[in-house]
């Protein structure tokens, strides 16, 4: 059932706009891969081309070693779940789920059995005779999933399937989708602009920007080892500083402001010149007095602003030695502006973003925290 899919130099223009720019991507059989990026980054365009609904301008799409780029959607055996469900309004839930089987000339009894099986999988058995407009958004999306999976497709494409749902429902549906995907082991390409969704659900994430894949890696690597400034700023919050690399004997160090920061992680940066380094707000401790830990990096500062975030406070701390304002994530209600504090983090929490284009960085200097929209 599960198939692998591969994009080779996949390119799509809309007029003069390069929506998808020579994308190479490999998805293994049974893998759950998310295309993550802001709107307009080309992620939906890739999925539409994979489904056969849109012709690539150039490049190839390989499924199980065979090119499918010239096949119409009918011949690809790829299930698609659309953002707005696209359920057939004049058919019942069971008829919707059975549509792909009816088209394939299955016998009536077989269609009924398979539809019942799929509806059980998405826990909608009691709604089999309802019409889609009578169901809630979450239910409709589950019907759409059951319909896509019923003909045992070689893989499933999901284009922002939860985009139209409210947050609580989205949370539940993420678990649900993940459970179903694991249960069936079906290869899945998932499109979203929601980083939490991507981090939670995926085996691998392809972070996209302006038609290109910025980084293709596991959620852990995407979060802890972003390979570009875009990835670092798009996924999670991050204090990001431009730094100058200095050699400090055995370990690698970076000069930020007047301070020297040691890195303990794998060294990705170019051996000299400017670099980008950062620390995630949740890895920074804020203390009244410096701790006695040996290995910690610590700087004195003054609380400038406290932003309430519900589950945590984001505390902005002016750190003169870094010549930066550092954002830390703290328990709520601990700090108030004006307080003299110490900020600390472990050298292993330093994120080093490799970058080749120093001039571009210079122009963005002074930006403290990357807060994704």
């Amino acid at each position, binding site marked *: 059932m599960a198939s692998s899919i591969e994009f080779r130099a996949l390119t799509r223009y809309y007029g003069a706009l390069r929506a998808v720019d020579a994308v190479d991507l490999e998805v293994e059989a049974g893998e759950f891969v998310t295309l993550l990026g802001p709107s307009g980054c080309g992620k939906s365009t890739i999925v539409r081309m994979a*489904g*056969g*609904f849109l012709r690539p301008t150039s490049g190839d799409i390989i499924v199980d070693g065979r090119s499918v780029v010239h096949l*119409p*959607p*009918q011949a*690809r*055996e*790829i*299930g*698609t779940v*659309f953002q*707005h*469900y*696209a*359920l*057939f*309004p*004049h058919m019942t839930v069971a008829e919707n789920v059975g*549509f*792909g089987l*009816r*088209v*394939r000339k299955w016998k009536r009894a077989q269609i009924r059995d398979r539809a019942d099986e799929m509806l059980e999988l998405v826990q909608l058995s009691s709604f089999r005779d309802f019409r889609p*407009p009578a169901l809630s958004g979450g239910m409709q999306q589950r019907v759409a999933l059951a*319909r*896509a999976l019923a*003909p045992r497709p070689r893989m499933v494409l999901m284009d922002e399937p939860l985009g139209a749902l409210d947050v609580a429902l989205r949370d539940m549906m993420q678990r649900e989708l993940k459970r179903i995907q694991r249960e069936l082991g079906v290869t899945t390409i998932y499109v979203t602009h929601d980083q939490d969704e991507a981090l939670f659900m995926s085996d691998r994430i392809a972070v996209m920007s302006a038609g290109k894949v910025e980084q293709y890696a596991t959620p852990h690597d995407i979060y802890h080892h972003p390979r570009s400034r875009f990835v670092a700023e798009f996924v999670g919050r991050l204090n990001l500083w431009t730094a100058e690399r200095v050699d400090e004997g055995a370990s690698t160090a970076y000069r930020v402001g007047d301070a020297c920061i040691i890195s303990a992680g794998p060294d990705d940066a170019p051996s000299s010149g400017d670099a980008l380094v950062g620390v995630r707000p949740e890895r920074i401790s804020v203390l009244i007095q410096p701790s006695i830990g040996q290995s910690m990096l610590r700087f004195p500062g003054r609380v400038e602003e406290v932003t309430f975030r519900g589950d945590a406070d984001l505390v902005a701390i002016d750190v003169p030695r870094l010549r930066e304002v550092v954002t830390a994530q703290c328990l709520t209600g601990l700090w108030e502006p004006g307080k003299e504090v110490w900020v600390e983090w472990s050298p292993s929490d330093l994120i080093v973003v490799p970058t080749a284009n120093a001039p571009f960085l210079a122009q963005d200097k002074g930006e403290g925290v990357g807060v994704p929209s």
Partner: protein
Amino acid sequence: MTTTEPETLRQHGYAAHPRRAVWHRRSFNGFMVLSAVLAALFLLAPTLIVIVISFGTDRFMTLPPSGWTVDWFGRIPPRYFESAWLSVRLATIVTVASVMLGVPAGLGLARSRMRAKALVDAIVRSPLQVPFVVIGVMSLFYYSLLNRTVGLGLLGTMTGLAIAHTIVTAPYVVVGVVASMAKFDVGLEDAAHGLGASRFTTFRLVIFPIIKPAVVAGSFFAFLVSFDEVPITLFITVAGAATLPVTMFLDAELQLSPVIYAVSSLLTLMSIGAVLLFARVVGLRGAMAPQ
């Protein structure tokens, strides 16, 4: 009056004078019913009067009639039945042509994303905005021109009438199809294709069921408009081969014989019968507003 009523009214701000509020509402309701009855009478009066008169003995319009008879119905000349048959055939052809042109045009318009879409849409709908009499004049001019230049004789023929009628009836189908498609996600077709359905299967199982009410309603209008059409037909018909409404119009100009009232009564009753049948079979409300 139930005991709960003042409660409800108080909630709506009538606390000071609950009794007066109830009185106001009652008289308002009465006023609405009266207006509705008057309006219905006003609208129905001409039809009712014609039906009443058609059963009267008088040669000239007299109300109330001095005696009652069904004689006039037996004195309808055979040419009325011939032209009625012509009208039915014409309206049927026009209906079929309207569907065959209107459905593809409507689907194309609903689906297309081309820049000139609004323009094409306006052109397709334009016959509904041009006065029928103008279309009549233009058809006469155009058919004569065709006759003189290429020897194509359309004046007074069934084909000529059908073409002219279809110009004004096809838009009813187009407009309905576009409206019914607009309610649904364009992704439906992609979804069907992705599930393995061919273009034809997609049309049969997905598109057609969605536009069916619009097509039925559009055909119904096309048939009625064609059957009832005078201004265009008048210009391009020839004596002896006229549709029923045109025959009646020409006869009424010569003399207002009670025979015409008899024909009118018959037509009215048949129309009501047809609408009732249509409502019974398809559901009028369902056809007017799909889903």
